[in-house]
């Protein structure tokens, strides 16, 4: 049987909760589960902050998210409304520059509906 999983991340990155979410995805992949997408909502949107600065000897959550996207083609959907409420910006131009890290897709809540509908299981972390 082909199992599919979607993850909704609502907790911020500067905590051990993010490490657990990433490890859970890696375990799912190792178990042959297809992770069809991650949706970042509420304080979870801070996971997509390009400038998030964590000392180099600490867990680099952003790099881990990007690796999951790159190596396993897991879409990382960012709720842009929730992100803008927390200081992130998708603007480009002379006086502005997107503060959203590569590998994240700017999305709306419609994407949450789609992931929720498609996945066999959805877990909020």
């Amino acid at each position, binding site marked *: 049987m082909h199992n599919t999983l979607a993850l909704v991340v609502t907790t911020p990155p500067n905590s051990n909760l993010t490490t*657990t979410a990433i490890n859970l995805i890696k375990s799912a992949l190792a*178990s042959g589960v297809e992770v069809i997408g991650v949706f970042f909502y509420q304080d979870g949107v801070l996971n997509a902050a390009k400038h998030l600065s964590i000392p180099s000897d600490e867990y680099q959550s952003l790099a881990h998210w990007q690796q999951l996207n790159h190596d396993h083609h897991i879409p990382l959907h960012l709720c842009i409304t929730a992100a803008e409420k927390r200081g992130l910006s998708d603007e480009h131009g002379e006086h502005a520059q997107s503060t959203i890290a590569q590998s994240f897709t700017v999305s709306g809540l419609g994407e949450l509906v789609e992931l929720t509908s498609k996945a066999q299981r959805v877990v909020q972390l």
Partner: protein
Amino acid sequence: MLHIIRHSGFNSNALTLCLDTALAGDAILLMDDGCYNLTHPSLLAKCGKQTELKVYFVDLHAKARAIHTNQAAVSAIDMSAVITLIFQHENSITWS
């Protein structure tokens, strides 16, 4: 239903909400700071009652916190068993 608890029930109402909502046949998974609930009186009382409620905790998360349990009614599991639990249950709630 699988109840995922990621916070301490001593500082917050996460554990209480979970126990108030759980029905026979449900499972409780203690992850992250949820492992602190291994010594919480409300959880111990439930375990003592031989309810049809299964309680699991992520072994690694408890070890890192130096939290120990000698309850036979709770099971230490790893992350791969967490994935199994997720697919064994129809749905889940994450309490915080």
